């Protein structure tokens, strides 16, 4: 019984290490951001919805602004 547990534990450890090594963080290079820069990826593409969201935030949080980003909007630099 003990032997099976030791084997099982080892298998779990090896499995976890394998998953950690071959999964997770993939780096998107600046020149691969074509899809991310697409218009449909913008959170402010619906002007009316943006105004409403901003109004709700102001009413609930007593603060406004801070939604914009710097640069050309493509996140490429």
């Amino acid at each position: 019984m003990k032997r099976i547990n030791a084997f099982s534990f080892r298998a779990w450890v090896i499995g976890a290490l394998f998953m950690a090594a071959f999964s997770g963080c993939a780096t998107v290079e600046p020149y691969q951001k074509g899809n991310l820069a697409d218009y449909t990826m913008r959170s402010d593409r619906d002007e009316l919805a943006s105004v409403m969201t901003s109004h709700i935030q102001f009413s609930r949080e007593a603060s406004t602004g801070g939604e914009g980003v710097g640069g050309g909007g493509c996140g490429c630099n």
Partner: protein
Amino acid sequence: MLVLIGSVVAQAEAWGPETEVGDLAAFDLAGDIPVMEGKVTLIDFWASWCAPCKAAFPEMENLYLKHKDAGFQVLAISLDQKAKMMDSFLKRQKPSFAIAHDTKQLLARSAEIQVMPSSFLVDKNGVVRYAHKGWHGDKSVKSLEKQIKTLLDE
């Protein structure tokens, strides 16, 4: 360990001042690549989805028209993943300088492009002398103008 070795090797290939550009045909680029020997070349990496890249186009056209007779040329390399988007932008812009398409992004990977747009001024011997990251409007134009003149006078 492999990752560490890989990153060291990759760093050695990143483009910057003193990098010898070499044969660009090895990177499977689509389009006509101009002969760089004996000419000052601005190699610009751009994409149709990148707003600052597009803003640089009219200024690059001006610089090209102004200095082409003195031996200056521009090679704009598109890193678009969708050729249709690139064609659509070029149809509207109609640049008169050379355009190539890095279809598999092999050159971008090799040059380790960190910012879009990135441009490199290459001297008459095919060596990168100046590197520009991003596009900063008039500031970029003035700096490019000065550097182009310096390289043409050599």
